[in-house]
């Protein structure tokens, strides 16, 4: 079977990574929204924390995306 399994793996990998990252960022956003509802004065602190943590999660997700990109280049 002369099929390119690397391309398949790259596609699957990118999809899975997106699921993980989106789930994580969604949970952070949910917690941030609820915390802002409980204490509106802390809104800007909560927003800063949520933004920083989302960027860190995105960093991890993009490691895997870069790996998938390397895979499809093979």
């Amino acid at each position, binding site marked *: 079977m002369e099929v390119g399994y690397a391309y398949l793996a790259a596609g699957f990998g990118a999809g899975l990574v997106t699921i993980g990252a989106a789930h994580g960022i969604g949970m952070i956003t949910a917690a941030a929204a609820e915390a802002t509802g409980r204490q509106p004065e802390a809104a800007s602190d909560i927003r800063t924390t949520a*933004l*920083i943590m989302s*960027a*860190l999660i*995105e*960093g991890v997700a*993009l*490691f895997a*995306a*870069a790996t998938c990109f390397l895979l*499809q*280049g093979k």
Partner: protein
Amino acid sequence: MNFCKNLIVSLSFLFAISFADDKTKNHDSHQTDIHDTHGEELHDEGVTGDVIMHHIQDAAVFEIFNPLHPTHPIELKLTTTWNDVHPTLGNWFGWMVSGSGYAEEPNQLIFTKQSIMMLLASILIILFFVLGYKKDRKVQSGFGNLLEVFVVFIRDEVVYPNMGEKQGRRFLPLILTFFFFIVLLNLMGLVPGSSTATASFSVTVGLSLITFFTYIFFGNKDFWKHIFATPGVPIWLLPIMIPVELIGLLTKPFALSVRLLANMNAGHIIILAFLGIIINVKSYYVALGSVPMAIAINMLELFVAFLQGYIFSLLSSIFIGMAVVEHEHH
């Protein structure tokens, strides 16, 4: 003592940036025919992964869009040889660039797209601060006021909370340089037709190696004690703890560089892919959906440019703060 430490850090910085050339892809197949580098062979099968990589990666030729001949961009090739600058310089400096992927002959001095961007960013930063900040006034106005917003933000929210006041003063110039350099490079890369210097391994790894050497050379005795003899750990656990701590020490600059690199690359790849769909499908109606998506992603990229600069500076100051701050003993 401080002078020795500063000297060592600056020498290791120079050592780190001497690796800054991109050996990954061999561009000879595209650059041999000077008049048709961008031409039909590259775009025949539509916008493939190779075309996108060509637009993102570094190149020796800066291709500027020519409205009169859209398929033949104006090519800015700023290369010379060290020997042309001065006849003996080739002996001293020629070794640095021979062996890089772009040198067609040894002793060549090349200003690639990304080097031009980095030089432009450095000149812009120097101009902004020299012309914008008036020393004789207590309260800045105009452009200096805008710069002061950023500087005070970095000082009061990023550096001083993580490093304390005393150590914060030592490292504030470094963190400010990181922030302004990265933000300017990211923003300049969003202009259509220019290249993003932070979208290459060389630049991001160079910047994160600066952080790495800073916290290695300015680390406290407490910092090293926490790595090699973590307090409260029984001695039979140390052979596991020490490699784990050392790996933790090494992954931090790696993560810093890959985060910045991947974010910048991903944005550009998405924009090029959206616009490439129009070419691949060969129909104009797709543009009605594709161009607004590309514009939306461009807006997101503006935000990501600032955010990634802020995250890089924040994490650098956290790492350096962990190494430098004097702890109270429990």
